[in-house]
């Protein structure tokens, strides 16, 4: 395999070897890890993965030997939240992903290279492509072309995963025109907010962004969506496209530095997690490190800001509602109580706690496409917890989770009974906007 040529010292430098020593192998992370619970193998536990990375760094196993467990990690980081010794699992994982990406680059087939290039370098980072995709999806749904296509079985030639995802993708609305420059005068006590719209979010869930902005405005904030912003780089970061992720981070930092915002707000648990950790993209000695840290400190999830505002609830929502937290919101951004607090304050709602709600749903960025079967194992475990007490609405805070929950609901044959909405949507409904 590729690994014979790898220099051991060089490898140790690239892997987060020192960080692996904080793991005392107590196993406290096992019950929190969705892949361990669903696959039932220690290699797919946080403790197992850390051990494999350490052994790879020591040259006791080859990189190839750690590849499968690392590839199948969701990156949900629930293990960090429960770890009694604060192991920096995120760093260990990223280092392993990067090393694997680097050494695989050589072995990758041409076809795969082209595909990665299109997805990571072009599609995700190119606003126009995404807009087109968004519009495409919009007209696709609107004209019912989807039904025609589905009938013609053309979707069968796509990988099964993409086909399935497509079948549950919600109707797309085009984004509204938004304020994209600061007003000259700032009223006192008014929060100035830079809105981070996110790329996938702004195509498939543009509607959620529009509602979020409206809610902030109703709550008395000035909200600006600057045009210079771009993709957050999270997916690239998780897939070992390090250089690309760093460049995207720099662009965003630069773009937002030009304005004086009190906060930069997003409604996407996953992107938000990357934004609050931009400084981890850089070496501590890098001049960008401090800039990134300042930027990161400004970034907040929409629920954090909304929970501070006076929201004018006018409509009762008399429904049984469950909440599926986004792992990245919980474990990386550490936003845990705010979404629940707002949710419970909505008049009429009966909150049904979901059993083991902190377990990842298996969506995890593009995991449910790349590792579709494994993802479905994890999703089925999640849905099993739902069955005893089926809610009418499942609230999410991240587009990935949103799509995955839709898929889960469909797989259980519950599409007619259970609605999946973003937190922002249900708040907006209660405020009748």
């Amino acid at each position, binding site marked *: 395999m590729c690994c014979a040529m790898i220099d051991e010292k060089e490898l140790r430098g690239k892997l987060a070897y020192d960080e692996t020593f904080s793991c005392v*192998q*107590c196993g406290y992370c*096992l019950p929190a890890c969705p892949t361990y619970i669903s696959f039932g*193998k*220690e*290699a797919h536990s946080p403790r197992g993965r850390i051990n494999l990375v350490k052994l790879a760094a020591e040259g006791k196993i080859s990189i190839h*030997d750690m590849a*499968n*467990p690392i590839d199948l990690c969701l990156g949900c980081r629930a293990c960090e939240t429960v770890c009694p010794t604060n192991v920096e699992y995120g760093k260990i994982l990223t280092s392993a992903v990067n090393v694997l990406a680097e050494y695989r680059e050589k072995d990758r087939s041409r076809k795969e290279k082209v595909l990665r290039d299109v997805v990571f370098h072009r599609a995700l980072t190119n606003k126009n492509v995404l807009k087109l995709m968004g519009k495409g999806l919009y007209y696709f749904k609107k004209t019912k072309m989807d039904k025609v296509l589905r009938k013609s079985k053309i979707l069968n030639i796509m990988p099964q995963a993409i086909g399935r995802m497509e079948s549950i993708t919600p109707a797309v609305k085009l984004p509204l025109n938004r304020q994209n420059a600061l007003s000259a005068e700032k009223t006192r006590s008014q929060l100035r907010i830079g809105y981070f719209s996110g790329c996938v979010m702004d195509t498939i869930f543009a509607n959620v962004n529009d509602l979020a902005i409206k809610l902030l405005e109703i709550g008395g904030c000035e909200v600006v969506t600057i045009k210079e912003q771009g993709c957050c780089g999270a997916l690239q970061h998780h897939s070992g496209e390090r250089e690309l992720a760093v460049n995207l981070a720099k662009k965003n930092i630069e773009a937002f530095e030009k304005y004086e915002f009190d906060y930069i707000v997003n409604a996407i648990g996953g992107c938000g997690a990357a934004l609050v950790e931009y400084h981890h993209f850089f070496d501590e000695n890098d001049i960008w490190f401090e800039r990134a840290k300042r930027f990161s400190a400004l970034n907040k999830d929409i629920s954090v800001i909304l929970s501070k505002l006076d929201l004018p609830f006018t409509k009762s929502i008399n429904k049984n509602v469950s909440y599926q937290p986004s792992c990245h919101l919980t474990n990386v951004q550490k936003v845990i109580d705010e979404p629940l607090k707002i949710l419970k304050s909505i008049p009429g709602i009966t909150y049904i706690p979901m059993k083991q709600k902190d377990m990842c749903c298996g969506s995890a960025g593009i995991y449910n496409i790349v590792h579709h079967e494994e993802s479905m194992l994890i999703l089925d475990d999640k849905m099993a917890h739902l069955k005893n007490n089926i809610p009418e609405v499942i609230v999410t805070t991240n587009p990935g989770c949103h799509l995955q929950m839709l898929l889960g609901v469909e797989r259980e044959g519950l599409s007619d009974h259970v609605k999946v909405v973003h937190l922002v949507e249900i708040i907006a409904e209660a405020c009748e906007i």
Partner: protein
Amino acid sequence: MNGHIEVIVEKLIEAFGDSSRVLTEVQDLYSYSFDASFGIYKPEIICQPIATDEVVELIKLAAQYKIPVVARGTGTSLSGGPLPVKGGIVVDFSLWDTKLEIHPDDLIAVVSPGVITSKINDKAIEFGLMYPPDPSSAHVSTIGGNLAENAGGPRGLKYGVTKDYVLGLEVVTAEGKVIRTGGRTMKNVTGYDLTKLIVGSEGTLCIITEATLRLVPRPLATKTAMVLFDEIVDSGHAISKVLRSGIMPAKMEIMDRHSIIAVEEYASLGLPIDVEAILLIELDGHHQAINEEMIRVEEACMSVNARSVIVAKDDREAEQLWQARRLVSPAIVKIKPTKISEDATVPRSKIPEMFQRLKEIREKYNVHLVVFGHAGDGNLHPNIIADQRDEEEMHRVEQAVEEIFEAAVSLGGTLSGEHGIGLMKSPFMEMELGKDGLHMMKLIKDAWDPQNILNPGKIFPEPGQRFVLRND
């Protein structure tokens, strides 16, 4: 050792009827090569049984080919119990968590070996009952592992440890025979007590495939106090004084000054850092009874020079007080990453003296030693914090640990109160048991497992085996 691995794998898959539970990939072999102590030992095969028949088949194969069989729960052992030091088959029981029955009228639970310990208590609570053994690792470790290590926890003071709650076992012997020991009754004197022999045998005598456990009524309420001491010796006196005033607390846990400081630096809970020790005392029982008992606890502590006693007003406040104890482990590993957890235990009356010895050892070897744990039953947890990568320091730590063992034994205590002997402490067995005592144990092992296929290399030291705390 074995040119037969491929044949064994093939036959195992046939016996299990499921190739996904027989693992031989490098990623898997290394993932079952460790536990929460030290050392990496690669097995040749992993299998994950979920039925007694499967265990029988695999033991028969192992006996036929004379290949070691090492049981494993979730690998939280602190003494090297599940390490396959001689290679062979690691039998991972973590998937076999399928049986957890509560029989409320008999006050018993029947469980399969892979059930996570805390789930037994969670389920018992639904019936107003309790499974008392509460090792700190209860939410991760398996009942099989607890039985094999005879695990205990804070509640051990009042309620005893795992062995006090086992009524009967189903086990597979080294010959592949299924036997049942004990039964479902509280009293049972039919022949030798094999149940108690197997509990704590660390997978060296047989494999446990089912257990019948005793449950007790759940106490109605609990009440917690935090007691501060300027002198650590007084905290030792307080323990005896409370116990002699007619009260049996459910828990009595101690934190020494070094652990208090570590917790404060870690989490700023507002603990006083100028005291030498904190005792956390929990009473359980009827509301009225424990309110009265708490007054007596306060009096007892104050009479032996406690600085003050803080009694939690409600469960929430109690939770806050216990938070300090829970944070000790995360706090101390902030200082250095490697934690060596010992659990030498001494008779209660010797607690003050043991503290003195530990203080001397700390200074003599210049190691970062903190003491916390189940003070009420003499099961102190001297923990040394070090860095595995520092050879010289680890050498000092090894010497310090050896001296801790010597101190405990010379005070009439034992090497291990709950973590077991495993690989790590076997070199000290003779020191505590004497040549003849160890020999009698060895005779039992030889009778049950004449081919030495069950967890070889554990409990009994190899000739010339030394105490080491390093990974290579």
